[in-house]
C-alpha cells in the first residue's frame, strides 16, 4: 500500500507538485499520465525517497518515508524496483553485472545461481546473448529493457517504471506491457507506471491518474478515463489516434 498525502515540491521557486494525493493498493497497476514536464518523474522519485517533499508525507505500508532513518530507508527500498527514464545502468559494468548487481550485493548466492536468474530475467525482456556487452554499446531500447530486468531481478513487491515502453518498437513494447501485467497476476506485484502512451496505459492499468498543474486531477479505471469529460484527458485521447 502506497499512500501519497499532500505532497508539495518546488525547485528554486518553480512549483512542480502542489498537493498531490494518491493511494495505490497492493497488487494494483497504477498508471500516471501527464504532459511533458508535468512532474511525473519528480513524483515517482518521491515515492522511493530519492527526493524529499517540501511538505506532505508518503507512507509505504503505513511507514512514513520522511521519518525513516537511512538504515531503515535502505530496508524499505529492498521491496522496490525502479526503472529510470534514462535507464541509469552503471556504465562501468557489463550487462550481466548490471542485472546481477542487486543479487551480488544483497545475497550469498553462487555465481551459477545468479547466472540462471539473470538469463531468466533477460529472456523475459527478450534479450539474449548480450551479457558481456557494455551498456554504452547498446541502443536506448535495449538499455531500457535491461533496466527492467535489473528492477525485477529480486522479485520486488513494488516496481516503479518511468516510461518503460518509450523508445521501443510496438512488438517489444507490447511484450513489456504483458510482462508488467504477468508480474501482477503471478506475483501480485504493485506497479506504478509513468507514461505518455494512453493506449498502452488503458491496456495495462487498473487505474489511471492524470497529473496536471502539479495535482492529480482525475483517477479512474481505463473505461472511466475514456469517458472522462476532463478537457486535458480528452485532449490526450484525441491525439492518440
Amino acid at each position: 500500500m502506497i499512500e501519497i498525502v499532500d505532497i508539495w515540491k518546488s525547485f528554486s521557486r518553480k512549483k512542480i507538485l502542489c498537493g498531490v494525493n494518491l493511494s495505490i493498493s497492493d497488487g494494483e497497476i497504477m498508471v500516471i499520465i501527464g504532459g511533458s514536464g508535468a512532474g511525473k518523474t519528480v513524483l515517482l522519485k518521491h515515492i522511493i525517497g530519492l527526493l524529499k517533499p517540501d511538505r506532505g508525507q508518503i507512507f509505504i505500508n503505513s511507514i512514513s518515508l520522511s521519518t525513516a532513518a537511512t538504515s531503515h530507508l535502505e530496508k524499505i527500498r529492498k521491496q522496490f524496483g525502479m526503472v529510470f527514464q534514462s535507464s541509469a545502468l552503471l556504465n562501468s559494468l557489463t550487462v550481466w553485472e548490471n542485472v546481477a548487481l542487486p543479487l551480488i550485493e544483497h545475497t550469498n548466492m553462487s555465481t551459477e545461481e545468479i547466472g540462471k536468474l539473470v538469463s531468466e530475467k533477460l529472456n523475459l525482456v527478450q534479450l539474449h546473448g548480450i551479457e558481456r556487452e557494455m551498456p554504452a554499446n547498446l541502443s536506448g531500447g535495449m538499455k531500457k529493457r535491461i533496466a527492467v530486468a535489473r528492477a525485477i531481478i529480486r522479485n520486488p513487491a513494488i516496481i516503479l517504471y518511468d516510461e518503460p515502453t518509450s523508445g521501443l518498437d510496438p512488438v517489444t513494447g507490447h511484450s513489456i506491457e504483458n510482462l508488467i501485467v504477468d508480474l501482477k497476476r503471478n506475483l501480485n506485484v504493485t506497479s506504478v507506471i509513468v507514461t505518455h502512451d494512453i493506449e498502452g496505459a488503458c491496456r495495462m492499468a487498473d487505474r489511471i491518474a492524470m497529473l496536471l498543474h502539479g495535482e492529480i486531477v482525475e483517477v479512474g479505471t481505463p473505461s472511466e478515463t475514456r469517458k472522462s469529460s476532463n478537457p486535458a484527458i480528452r485532449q490526450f485521447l484525441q491525439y492518440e489516434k
Partner: protein
Amino acid sequence: MNSRATSFLGRTGTGILNGFAGAGGTICLLGKGIYWCKASIPNRSKIVHQMDVAGVGSLPVVSLVAIFSGMVLSLQTGIELSHFHIEEMVGSIVSVSMFREMGPVISAIIVAGRVGAAMAAELGTMRVSEEIDALETMSINPVRFLIMPRLAALVLMLPVLTVFGILIGIFGGAVIAKNIMNVDYQVFLQNGIDFLHYKDIFSGMTKSVVFAFLIAGISCYQGMNAAGGAEGVGKATIRAVVLSFLFVLIFDYFLTRFFY
C-alpha cells in the same frame, strides 16, 4: 551604487557560506568513507581495482617527474656547494629534501591531477546520469560502493608512490652528482644516510597519508555533488584539482610547522 555594494556583499557572503558547506560536506563524506572501511574485506576486489588504476597507473609519471626533480635539485645545489668546495654534501641535501618535502608533494600533486580529476569526473558523470540514484534505489550505499574503495586505494597507494618517487629522485640526484660534480655514489649515499633522521622519514610518510585523505575527500565530494550535465561535471573536475592542489600545499606548510 548601494545596491551594487549589497550584491557584492551578498555574493561574498554566499561564497563564504558555500565554502563552509563544502568543507563540512567533505569532512562528513570522509568520515562516512572511513566508517565504511569496515566493509573492506567483502569489497576488496573493488579496492584492488582502484589501487591498480590510481597507483600502478601513476607510477610512470611519478617516476619521470621524480627523477628530473632529483636531478635538478642535485644540479642546482651542487653548483652552489662547489663554490665552497663542499659538493660532497649534495647527497644529504637531496635525500633530506626528497624525504621531507619533494617526494610527498610531487607525488600528491601528480596524483591530484591524475587520479583526483578522474575520480571527480567519474563520480560526477555517475551523478548526473542518475547512476548514483539508481544505486540508492537498489539499497546499495554509494559511499560503501564507490567512495570507500577509492579512499582506501589512495591512502594505501600514495605512500607507496611517494617512497618510490623519493628513491628514484635520489637516484637521479646521485647520477648528476657523479657525472657533473664528480661526487662518488658511495660518498653521495653515505652523506644522504648520515644526515637523514627517522623524523624526516616519518614526517614525509605522514604527509603523504594526509594528502591522500585530502585528495580523495575533495575529489569524491566534488564528484558526488556535480550537477547540471556535462558542464557541471567539467566544473566539478576543475574544482577537485584546484582545491586538491591548494589544500595539499596549505597542509604541507602546517604539517612542516608541526614537525619542525
